[in-house]
């Protein structure tokens, strides 16, 4: 299922003196099956763009096409249910959406709303809680007794349980410990390998380099670049000008370049760099 933006603009608090630009004439396509990363500095409009993916926000002008559904400024708020089922969204600080008495109920809440039977929803809850790496005994505990990182995982499980076609993640690993971050990223990579469309907002350029196959760069409500991470990260100076960083490996390669190493293109991942270095130093093939 593709999601296509056609000249979409969005203004916060339109028609008031406090009006602020959220999106400015955005035209992009997010392809079904892709792992799309959205990067951009704080306030560049990433979260605003995400909320158009399941019609939580409707464009002030332009159209968003989500699969077969067209969302225009005049689309009514009714009948968006099927769309919300298809596009699952994990918000920034998702742990603040938990409310139920037990983790089990909270995770089953989404599927129940979309008409899954109580038994099936419960089975999904058990399955998803395991999938996000939580032990089975949290199922019957109150989500409010868990740590912040565990609560985040419960919230993510709650969205996975809806079995969406497109999984949208707004900085899902912010505030997790490094091990937790790696686990979550590995989980998303596995889902993607199984065919899940993923849209990820992140400030971690390493994650972009390691996982994404398409990158949108946002600045002041506009999508200023779209491309494969390989292309996006070649232009180091341009990224720095847009207050963005580089993957650690690419930074390291840049410094090696200043010391006389030659790269015909900058590597993004450690294996890639190791391979290039091995070739230049005249060694054998790096494994």
């Amino acid at each position, binding site marked *: 299922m593709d999601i296509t933006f056609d000249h979409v603009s969005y203004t916060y608090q339109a028609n008031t003196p406090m009006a602020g630009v959220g999106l400015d004439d955005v035209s992009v396509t997010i392809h079904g099956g892709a792992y799309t990363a959205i990067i951009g500095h704080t306030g560049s409009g990433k979260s605003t763009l995400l909320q158009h993916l399941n019609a939580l926000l409707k464009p002030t002008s332009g159209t968003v096409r989500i699969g077969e559904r067209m969302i225009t400024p005049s689309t009514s708020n009714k009948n968006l249910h099927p769309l*919300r089922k298809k596009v699952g969204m994990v918000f920034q600080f998702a742990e*603040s959406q938990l409310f139920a008495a037990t983790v089990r109920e909270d995770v089953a809440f989404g599927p129940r709303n979309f008409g899954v039977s109580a038994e099936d929803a419960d089975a999904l809850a058990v399955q998803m809680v395991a999938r996000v790496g939580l032990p089975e005994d949290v199922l019957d505990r109150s989500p409010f007794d868990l740590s912040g990182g565990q609560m985040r995982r419960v919230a993510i499980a709650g969205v996975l349980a809806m079995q969406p076609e497109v999984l949208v993640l707004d900085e899902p690993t912010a505030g997790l410990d490094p091990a937790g971050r790696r686990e979550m990223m590995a989980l998303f990579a596995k889902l993607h390998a199984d065919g899940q469309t993923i849209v990820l907002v992140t400030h971690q350029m390493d994650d972009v380099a390691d996982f994404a196959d398409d990158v949108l760069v946002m600045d002041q409500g506009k999508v200023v670049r779209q491309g494969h991470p390989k292309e996006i990260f070649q232009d180091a100076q341009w990224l720095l000008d847009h207050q963005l960083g580089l993957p650690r490996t690419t930074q390291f390669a840049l410094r090696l370049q200043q010391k006389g190493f030659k790269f015909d293109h900058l590597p993004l991942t450690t294996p890639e760099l190791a391979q290039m270095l091995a070739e230049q130093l005249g060694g054998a093939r790096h494994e």
Partner: protein
Amino acid sequence: MNKMILGRYIPGDSFIHRLDPRTKLLATFYYIAVIFLANNWQSYLLATVVTLAIIPVSKVSLRFFLNGLLPVLFLIVFTVLIQVFFTTGGHVYWHWGWLSVTSLGLTNAGFIFVRLVLIIFMSTLLTLTTPSLSLADAVESLLKPLAKIHFPVTEVALMLSIALRFVPTLLDQTTKTMNAQRARGVDFGSGGLFKQVKTIVPLFIPLFVTAFTMADELATAMEARGYRDGYGRTRFRVLRYGRGDLLAAVVLILLTLGLIFLRN
């Protein structure tokens, strides 16, 4: 969430924006009291003209004032209808059991309508041109004499300003929580009563939890920075009366005199 106009500040730099918040607060209360002096069409006309002359000075579009009427529209209509049907006197136009429409009833209804609209316009003017924190400062400053009788002025003022400060934060949090639950398939504001009541839990529990966490964190942060009580604290925003405040007082006194002169 953005429809709540009462209590929404519109930034600006007009004469009214620059008035001391104490002046604006007192003037609004004074205006509400003095408007009751009006009792014939001449005095109501004067009050209306003065009010409509003051509003443009704020440079806030009239649309915001009209929006301010919406939340209380029902109240206004209700009051006006009661006046129309239950006041008797003068020429009788229509009569049915308890109900009658008379000339006196119609005039009174008209007067009450004008009075309510004017009062709401003026209170809207206060909230549109004054940040809520300035209002809290004004309340504190005006209550200060009560400290002599051991009324906890600074504590009350602190509570007030914290409460006001967190209204936008909580509204923001409400929007976020509603969005998060919508994404999980909740339809707010549709379906039968039972269905709607059920949507309250997933909205309010997270909100309460966030509010308590915020309160707790704020208290810790304040203690960590040495807050004990308000006595002897200096202030960042110092209130000072200026020439404009004198002018405002003069306008109000002239209005009062005019009303006394015109009423019968």
